[in-house]
């Protein structure tokens, strides 16, 4: 089986190379015979990679420790659940998993676009295959997951206990689905450049892909935050770790892209900008992989093989320069007739939203690579931590938050004073009321507290803007049709999925902003070393440390559990059982925190340390409003679903507009 897995990887590589060359030759020479032949390759490549993946999964499930990779990331006692997930637990498997997803996407693209636009699609397929070739090359010649051990050991080393959490099954695939997905819009953008089809065709074809990838990337980030929150046991959900940044930066650039393509669709502007953004998004995903794989930047996620990172770096530069050159060559074709009219318009609010998103992305990027740069320039390593990111990104983030409210409401082209008044009077009133109402309730003074105050005011402003949009839509529908309020709301949303889905996503984003602000500003924590029976207080909770027990849960796992009683206002509130788990063969215990989550605040307990005399160090966090973030995440998911839902009405509308435009301005590329 392992031989088959190894062999199919080689076949996949050879087929991909052939397919890539054939697609390009077919497109250049208009040779339909070559095209038909090339068009068989995506499926073959996918099939080969799939077989290879199945072989690797088989090795995990069958405890085949003759494979070095299986030996390193699994053992006999590991749950089947985690054996399946161990596939992407390490370097080699995660690259194969990446390739599996990429080839799967490629096959879907192939079936979606078969026999459509023969001028663009062959190039798009060729670009996708180039990227597949890069990964297959690495897998075949640098990090082969089928590498053998001459004398197979009897048992494997097991999966790092930190990874033995259900999020391990959910988080990496989600993130990869997002990362990999951006390859598709990128491929179509490059294909559009090569084939000179520079209208917004490529954006229309890949809109769903962009949305789906954005969705997965966004969820991947949130899942990562939840995982860190429940598993790493430091009371937080985000540490501005290089690897977190690596997943965050493409999300920011992709968000900018999602917004600015609307301007191109509506106004035929910002063509170069959009091309650059999708290129940047894709490059960021490769850069992220470079960071995680190179070990160049210290991070909690570091993988072991350093050299691999440099392949990614080289690949990154090749892509970057090739695409920049291509954009420059096509610059004359990317000129737009239309121009921005006024600062007070939706177009310019989108432009500013883009600048701010890119600003956050750049600050994050700069902070991440600053140690390397300072060492290269000054010979001294200088690092920046969370204070840097907070100091820079929070003000930019707040400006962005304000734009979430302004952008969708302000008029296109040029807003007049009267429609500004009409649209923003009530939201501003709401913001004003919030500002007054919060004044006596919340603490002010420190930088964080002041920012949080501003954040809450802006949240109220934006929320009112969005809800008013729903209200306007609903009432006008109710006026023209006999419908109940709920019925009208549903109809309006369902008729304009893209628009209202977007608003729902914005509601989720506002909740996330509120959750971050609340938890960063008003959180508190305490550390106590206690003997059984001792009591302490935090924020109105009286906590008693009762006892410590050790439980041999399985033959490889020992759990040490502390029991604490929490009282509030004199009555029993919660029994907390934070624990530490010890795995045989792994020298690092894993903290299992215990969290009681309410909409107001989380009470978060960690058994930080203990001694043989049953005294224990307990760390307690009170984290306000953390659950708002997770709720916001689900709302984002819901909103994205709505705006992605297939919509016949929208399709027809777009098609009509497309035809009209085409007859009015025949673009040079269409001849």
């Amino acid at each position, binding site marked *: 089986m392992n031989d088959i897995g190894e062999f199919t990887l080689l076949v996949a590589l050879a087929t991909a190379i052939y397919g890539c060359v054939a697609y390009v030759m077919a497109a250049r020479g208009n040779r339909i015979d070559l095209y038909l032949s090339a068009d068989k390759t995506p499926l073959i490549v996918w099939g080969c990679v799939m077989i290879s993946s199945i072989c690797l999964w088989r090795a995990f499930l069958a405890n085949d420790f003759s494979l*070095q990779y299986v030996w*390193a990331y699994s053992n006999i006692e590991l749950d089947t659940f985690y054996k399946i997930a161990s596939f992407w637990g390490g370097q080699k498997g995660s690259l194969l998993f990446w390739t599996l997803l990429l080839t799967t996407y490629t096959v879907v693209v192939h079936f979606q676009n078969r026999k459509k636009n023969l001028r663009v699609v062959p190039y798009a397929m060729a670009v996708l295959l180039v990227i597949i070739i890069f990964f297959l090359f690495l897998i075949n010649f640098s990090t082969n997951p089928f590498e053998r*051990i001459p*004398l*197979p*050991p009897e048992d494997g*080393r097991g999966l*790092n206990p930190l990874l033995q959490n259900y999020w391990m099954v959910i988080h990496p695939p989600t993130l990869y689905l997002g990362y990999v997905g951006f390859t598709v819009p990128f491929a179509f953008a490059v294909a559009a450049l090569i084939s000179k089809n520079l209208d917004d065709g490529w954006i229309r074809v890949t809109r769903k892909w962009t949305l789906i990838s954005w969705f997965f990337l966004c969820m991947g980030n949130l899942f990562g935050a939840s995982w860190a929150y429940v598993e790493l046991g430091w009371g937080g959900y985000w540490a501005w770790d290089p690897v977190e940044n690596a997943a965050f930066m493409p999300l920011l650039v992709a968000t900018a892209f999602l917004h600015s393509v609307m301007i191109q669709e509506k106004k035929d502007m910002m063509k170069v900008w959009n091309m650059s953004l999708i290129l940047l998004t894709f490059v960021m995903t490769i850069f992220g992989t470079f960071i995680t794989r190179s070990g160049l930047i210290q991070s909690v996620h*570091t993988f*072991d093989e350093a050299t691999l990172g440099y392949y990614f770096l080289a690949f990154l530069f090749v892509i970057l320069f090739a695409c920049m050159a291509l954009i420059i060559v096509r610059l004359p074709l990317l000129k737009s007739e239309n*121009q*921005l*009219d006024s*600062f007070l318009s939706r177009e*310019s609010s989108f*432009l*500013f939203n883009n*600048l*701010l998103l890119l*600003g956050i992305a*750049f*600050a994050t990027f*700069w*902070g991440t690579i*600053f140690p390397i740069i300072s060492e290269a320039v000054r010979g001294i*390593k*200088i*690092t*920046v*931590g969370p*204070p*840097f990111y907070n*100091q*820079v990104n929070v003000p*930019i983030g707040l400006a962005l938050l304000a734009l979430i409210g302004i952008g969708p409401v302000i008029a296109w082209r040029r807003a007049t004073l009267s429609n500004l008044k009409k649209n923003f009077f009530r939201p501003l009133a709401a913001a004003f009321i919030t500002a007054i109402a919060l004044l006596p309730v919340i603490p002010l003074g420190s930088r964080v507290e002041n920012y949080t105050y501003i954040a809450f005011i802006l949240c109220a402003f934006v929320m009112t803007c969005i809800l008013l949009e729903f209200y306007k839509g609903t009432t006008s529908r109710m006026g023209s049709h006999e419908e109940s309020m709920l019925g009208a709301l549903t109809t309006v949303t369902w008729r304009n999925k893209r628009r209202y889905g977007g608003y729902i996503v914005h509601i989720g984003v506002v909740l996330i902003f509120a959750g971050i602000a609340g938890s960063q500003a008003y959180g508190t924590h305490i*550390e106590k*070393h206690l003997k059984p029976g001792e009591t302490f207080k935090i924020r109105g909770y009286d906590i008693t440390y009762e006892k*410590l*027990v*050790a*439980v*041999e849960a399985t033959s490889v796992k*020992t759990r*040490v559990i502390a029991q604490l009683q929490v009282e509030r206002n004199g009555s029993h509130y919660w029994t907390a059982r934070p624990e*530490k788990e*010890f795995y*045989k*063969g*792994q*020298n*690092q*215990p894993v903290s299992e925190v215990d969290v009681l989550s309410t909409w107001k605040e989380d009470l978060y307990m960690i058994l*930080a*340390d*203990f*001694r*043989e005399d*049953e*005294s224990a*160090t307990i760390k307690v966090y009170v984290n306000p409003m953390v659950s708002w973030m997770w709720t916001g995440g689900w709302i984002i998911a819901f909103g994205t679903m709505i705006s992605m839902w297939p919509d016949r009405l929208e399709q027809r509308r777009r098609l009509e507009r497309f035809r009209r435009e085409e007859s009015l301005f025949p673009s040079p590329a269409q001849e």
Partner: protein
Amino acid sequence: MKHKKVRFLVGSLLIVGAIGYLITMGISNTSQYFFTVDELLSQKVSYAGSGLKVKGNVVNGSIQRDPNDYLNVMFSIEEKESSLKVAYQGVTPDMFADGREVVVEGTLGEDGVFHASTLLTSCPSKYEAEKEAGKMHPGTLNTDKYKEPGLNKADALPKTTI
């Protein structure tokens, strides 16, 4: 037309400038120098008082805890040529033990004692083990070597079942 273009250019430049200003200020206010113990102690300029990150290995037998306050810890970290005394208040990570590589963040006092506000142990040993495995045949890997004080500590507790 020209006029409008210039206005937008100026507007965008203002935003870009503001972001650039934030980044520059952020770097100068919050950055920390990152040294190993030898690098820090061989510097000609004194870094006392400024934010520092220092990497070194815990000196064997140097970990002392205040008998009245378990969370008050003193220890030393060393490299090849020099060692540095560290004072730390707080929970020590699970991996914190003699000989471990640690990174401390804080300030260097005039008395030469490093006052650490955070104490990090380097990456999970999974990866160290991997490096060692590369040197010898995995089949001969001695798992007892990976049994650590932490587990012994857990073994010392009374056992129950649930």
